[in-house]
């Protein structure tokens, strides 16, 4: 029997990444799979105020650090939410406000710096354990992330690949999603997703025993319910109006292939499990801002899912 641990959408949270690296041992899993969206959503400028003083605005609250200890504490707070600290000064901030390209470059540099740190940490922690992490970046992850992952020894980039997870189970993986209102890095139309999935499913030797590690959840699976937004990206009816936003191409593929297991993420509030025919689909959700690693432990038998449970770590 194979026990796998799956988590997703850690969005730059150092705490969640550290927990993920420890999760295999903690839960007794022998396969580790990280869904997409490992990068964070915001850079927090630490603006130098002279001397050893810095000021930041975190979640619309202003915090000041007057010494090294307070600065370290603020760094920790920022990183715990998956945001990236950036040391700067008022002059640079004024300049950056006129130069969005430079802001993007800073953002990318900060993201890649942290991904590199994460890969180094993973290689250090997993060395000698015999454990690897299967990873396919999600729609929010920049393309440049891939090269850093490729350079890692124990984090394996499996985007678009069919891999043999154990003696009985193959796994296909993709972090690409259907279109979102945010025009993110890895999203495409449903017919393109269909082609992407077929390119992998056609290679499966035993499709009914396969695992679909696909970032986006299938359409109308109850794992893809997100607040309906108006044209200004404002949730309508105070977030009470939820609608399915998953991929129709993925749903069709699951209905057709009927794999053993689907592992999904993307919709943080879509935590749950669902069956599409014989396929068990899981979205463990994400609470990365709170430093909580949501995940799923799945025990795979030869031709069935023996058991599973969602975790809150």
């Amino acid at each position, binding site marked *: 029997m194979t026990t796998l641990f799956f988590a997703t959408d850690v969005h730059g949270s150092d705490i969640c990444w550290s927990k993920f690296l420890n999760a295999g041992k903690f839960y007794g899993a022998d396969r580790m799979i990280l869904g997409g969206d490992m990068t964070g959503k915001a850079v927090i400028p630490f603006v130098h105020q002279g001397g050893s003083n810095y000021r930041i605005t975190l979640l619309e609250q202003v915090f000041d650090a007057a010494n090294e200890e307070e600065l370290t504490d603020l760094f920790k707070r920022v990183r715990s939410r998956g945001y990236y600290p*950036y040391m700067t000064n008022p002059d640079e901030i004024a300049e950056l406000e006129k130069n969005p390209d430079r802001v993007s470059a800073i953002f990318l540099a900060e993201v890649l710096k942290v991904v590199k740190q994460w890969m180094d940490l993973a290689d250090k922690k997993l060395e000698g354990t015999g454990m690897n992490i299967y990873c396919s970046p999600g729609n929010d992850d920049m393309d440049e992330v891939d090269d850093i992952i490729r350079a890692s020894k124990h984090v394996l980039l499996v985007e678009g690949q069919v891999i043999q997870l154990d003696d009985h189970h193959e796994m296909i993986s993709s972090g690409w999603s259907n279109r979102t209102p945010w025009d993110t890095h890895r999203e495409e139309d449903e017919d393109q997703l269909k082609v992407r999935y077929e390119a992998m499913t056609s290679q499966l030797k035993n499709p009914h025993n396969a695992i679909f590690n696909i970032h986006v959840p299938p359409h109308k699976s109850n794992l893809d319910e997100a607040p309906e937004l108006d044209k200004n990206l404002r949730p309508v009816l105070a977030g009470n109006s939820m609608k399915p936003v998953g991929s129709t191409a993925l749903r069709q593929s699951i209905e057709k292939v009927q794999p053993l297991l689907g592992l999904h993420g993307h919709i943080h509030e879509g935590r749950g499990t669902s069956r599409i025919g014989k396929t068990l689909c899981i979205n463990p959700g994400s609470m990365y801002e709170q430093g909580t690693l949501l995940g799923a432990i799945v025990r795979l038998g030869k031709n069935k899912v023996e058991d599973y449970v969602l975790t809150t770590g």
Partner: protein
Amino acid sequence: MSDLFVRKATGLVRSWSVMDAFVYALFSINLITLGLYSFSQMYYFEGGMVNALIVSALFIFFEVVVYAALISVMPRSGGDYVWQSRILGGAVGFILAVTGWWFILWLWVPLYGDMFRHIVLVPILGVLGAKDAALWFAGTQNGAFTASIITLIIVSIFITLGMKTYARIQKFSFYGGMLGLLIVIVLLLTGSPATFKAGLEANATSMFGAAPGVYDATVTLGTNAGAITPFSGGSFSAVFLVIPYLVFFNLWPNWGATLYGEVRGATDFKRNVAGMGWALAVTTLLAVILLFAIKQTIGWEFYVQAGGAWWNYAWGFSPDAPALPVWPYPALLAAFLTTNKALQLLVVVLMSLWWFGWSGTVFLSSTRVIFAAAFDRLLPEAVAKLDERTGTPINALLMMVVPSVVVAYLFAYNIASFQTLTLCSTLVIAVTFLGTTIAAIVLPYTKPDLYKASPIAKYNVAGIPLITIAGLIFGGFLVFLLYQWIIDPNALYGIGIKNTSSIYYMLGNYVLAAIIYFGFKAYRKSKGIDLNKVQAEIPVE
């Protein structure tokens, strides 16, 4: 956070409209259903109704602060269940969540059904001339049970339609219901006691077959029932003793709060407080205005006496049937002020929207808790199954509907004095709220890193976190309510240790929850899944 350094990423949405949050919260503390239903039952108190409304709202504002703060620290997490599980432990979280958001809703079904017949069925049938049908629904146990069954059908349809559609029904109901309320208030403020008395005599006899002299007979029956509750005034303690009954109506501005989405900063905390807080304030103000309008034309004493006459008979304290053979619904009484049948029908139809826009809430929260428990493997996977074609959570719905039919039957036919359990519906949820409030009080101290990195980290009063201060005030308020309900030293609320049915019923809820929790935990352990471990925090280092 400056948008300069925020990139485009999935889920980064703008804040929701305060108006939308306001509408949802306003419907949760529903003046026409919960409010008028409870006001009519509160005929024997010595404290002023208006005073109690205002004082209770002041305390409940701290509930708004507690929930808005928790949403800010732990957004999109699933509400009370997750907050309590993470801060107070899995057993507390599960038991308090399933009792407060699932089991006790079985008891709310006959209450929703009772309001359905009094606010929707009877007035509309009466105005349409279907006297016998109206009286059957209004005054028979079969009518009460049938109203509960229809309620279950309607609510199940709402679940099948899904949140997106129901949210739109709510919005439409809000505007229609508000228009209806405006017409009612105008009718009441432009009428006079004399025209009301004449309208009551004419319409009560023609619509519902009341005997002539219905006004005076109601006054006599109400006086005999001990109807004394004043419009305002009363001693400090008398006013406070009204509140444990009144909160059946206004303890719920937080009902939809757990749905509120990503919180990006302190502004969103303020928006949450504003949405729920304004709903509480406006509902309180509307209640005072409506009661004032009732006082001006219907007459406060008559209104209280009519409530006393109705409930004194309904609860079996008196063998004398009320002279007005239908529940004294102020909107219907206001409609008696006009002879225009079309206007009468418009009033009762528009006012019925207050029920339709609110009733779906009875199961929506319950199905979420059932799903969450199933995902945590504390219930079988099958309960979270969706119908492939419609997406309806059929099994979860059955777990609401089937027990509700049983409880509705017990309630309608008053078996084991079930009709005395009305306030248990509020007590059990208040216990759940108390668990959440305790979690809020200790949060800054038990989860300091989580709290410090939240949008409310800088909100302090005299160096103490606002969430703790608000929690202590609201928690104290809840403890007062629980003491009054359970001990009931003045014999005012009819539940608690003086009512064995209520104690057995409530304890039964908690015992059932504990059996499910510990039973499934042991079962999963036998299958190799340690639920303690899957909910434990993974070491970071």
